[in-house]
């Protein structure tokens, strides 16, 4: 065997690599991503925390230091209300997606037959158009002079122009439209994976349709429900475009409030404090949710 030092450089490196313990390999492989996250994700978040403790400068800039002014401002009932309204909107939006999405996922998993793949694909295709344009298309449809209004008036369902645009209803239409696939796919996967024999067994043992659904299908697909709800709820808390386009100026949510601190008010420390607040709130909520879910799942016979 030749001495290590007489080998060409690349071979030497390879031999060295092989001598390293296995965790060192994985560390080398993980290093680029870790550095990337540290520099472009944790760095910005840290900067946001720092600036949230700074003060607004006289010309809209930032005066560094340690002040709690921005956090004090957060307790203003006006902003507390925005937080509450946003959480309510995200909660209702998530439930709406669940209630509307579950029957669709159920249909796809159990009734679609050989058209399953095509029908699944058809759910994603609209999402290959721009999010922005899809949402603006709803503005065209829901406008009081728009397509839907004219059609509904022509067939006599309504007698005045449609007054839906710039209302919470329009926001929820936008939400369900844009977030439905995020709910349907985990539900579909859960329903598809479920052992269908359990449903048959339940029916053979005399349980009715609804009893079987409540006591067998629903509990078995609960992980899908949980994933779907998380996937919809989390981005909804920061949603900016849907309320901006379909909600008009009356319906202000957290996303718009944060954005406005940068686009209009130029109060960066307060905007940063709002961002920190959203992060903390989400981390707390998600952890509570996961904890409750685990406890519920461990209850036998649910």
């Amino acid at each position, binding site marked *: 065997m030749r001495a290590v030092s007489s080998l060409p450089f690349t071979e030497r490196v390879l031999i060295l*690599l092989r001598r390293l313990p296995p965790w060192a*390999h*994985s560390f080398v492989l993980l290093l*680029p991503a870790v550095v990337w996250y540290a520099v472009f994700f944790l760095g910005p978040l840290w900067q946001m925390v720092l*600036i949230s403790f700074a003060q607004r400068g006289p010309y809209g800039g930032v005066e560094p230091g340690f002040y709690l002014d921005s956090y004090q401002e957060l307790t203003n009932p006006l902003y507390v209300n925005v937080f509450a309204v946003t959480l309510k909107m995200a909660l209702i939006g998530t439930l709406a997606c669940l209630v509307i999405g579950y029957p669709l996922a159920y249909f796809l998993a159990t009734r679609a037959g050989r058209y399953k793949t095509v029908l699944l694909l058809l759910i994603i295709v609209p999402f290959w158009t721009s*999010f922005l344009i899809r949402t603006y298309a709803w503005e065209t449809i829901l406008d009081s002079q728009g397509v839907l209004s004219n059609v509904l008036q022509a067939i006599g369902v309504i007698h005045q122009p449609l007054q839906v645009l710039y209302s919470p209803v329009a926001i929820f239409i936008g939400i369900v439209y844009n977030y439905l696939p995020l709910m349907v796919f985990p539900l579909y996967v859960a329903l598809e994976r479920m052992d269908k024999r359990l449903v048959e067994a339940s029916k053979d043992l005399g349980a009715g349709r609804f009893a079987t659904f409540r006591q067998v299908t629903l509990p078995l697909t609960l992980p899908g429900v949980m994933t779907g709800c998380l996937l919809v709820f989390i981005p909804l808390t920061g949603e900016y475009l849907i309320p901006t386009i379909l909600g008009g100026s009356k319906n202000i949510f957290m996303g718009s409030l944060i954005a406005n601190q*940068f686009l209009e008010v130029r109060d960066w420390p307060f905007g940063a404090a709002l*961002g920190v607040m959203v992060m903390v709130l989400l981390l707390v909520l998600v952890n509570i949710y996961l904890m409750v879910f685990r406890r519920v799942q461990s209850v036998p016979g649910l």
Partner: protein
Amino acid sequence: MGLQVQAQPAASDTQTTRTEQALWRRRLPGLLVETWLRGQAALLYIFLYAPIAVVVLYSFNNSRRVMTWGGFTTKWYYAAWTSPDVTSSLQISLTAALLNAVLAVSLGTLAALGMRSAPRWLRIGFEGLVYTTIITPEIVVAIASLLYFVSLNISLGLQTIVVTHAVYNTSIVTLIVATRLAGMDRTLEEASADLGATPFGTFWRVTLPQLYPAVLAGALLAFTFSFDDFILSFFVSGVGSTTLPLNLFSRLRFGVSPIINAVAATMLTLTLTAIVIAQLVLRKGARGTRVARVEEVAGG
């Protein structure tokens, strides 16, 4: 069962109707549920395609006002694709999406490979980081990145768009590739190493061909995410780097115009074509890898 009831001789009319009623009462919930499931699915598909139909239809509308129909025309397509700000913003969007996809795929694939053999503490820690990037709302990442770049005096532009997009997309690629790796057979790699291949050779000729579909899927997702992204780009783009969604947004502030519909309809056609081609390549690639794998094992 229905046949049975009808086949029974009409012993007494009242009894037949009673049996029929009982039958109906048993069947009705099932029938209602079936109708409801199908009806709701059909309505939802209409709901999903209504906006798309409106966009495509009005892109051919020969009228300046969006709400009224003025006959068929293709002039908006011509107007859209000869407008310099549309084409230049498309170019910026494509460049950003491509660079971001390359970055995300390299970082994410390496990380997924690293996660496989990492000790528990390292894997859990890294997974936590990956999930945190996904949980964090885009608006928070957007403002945090803006504050970060501004305080470090980094000029905003294409470079800041790319790196900000690549954070989120690295996580997506990592998760997709890690899922594929978890379901992958390790014996092939062990065989390759036993037969004297270098770690790099094993990776290049055994692991990567098997990972190919996941890597491609990750790249596609990363590309489309970046191409469609609005919020991140909105905050971290500089003056000279307006992406297509940003350009459309500023146009839409003055109302929906047929030009925007024409851009959207073209983009939809292009993405659909790209997806179909990707699907074909993927299917071919999957077949190719199987052959390559067999050859590799036999030849090695």
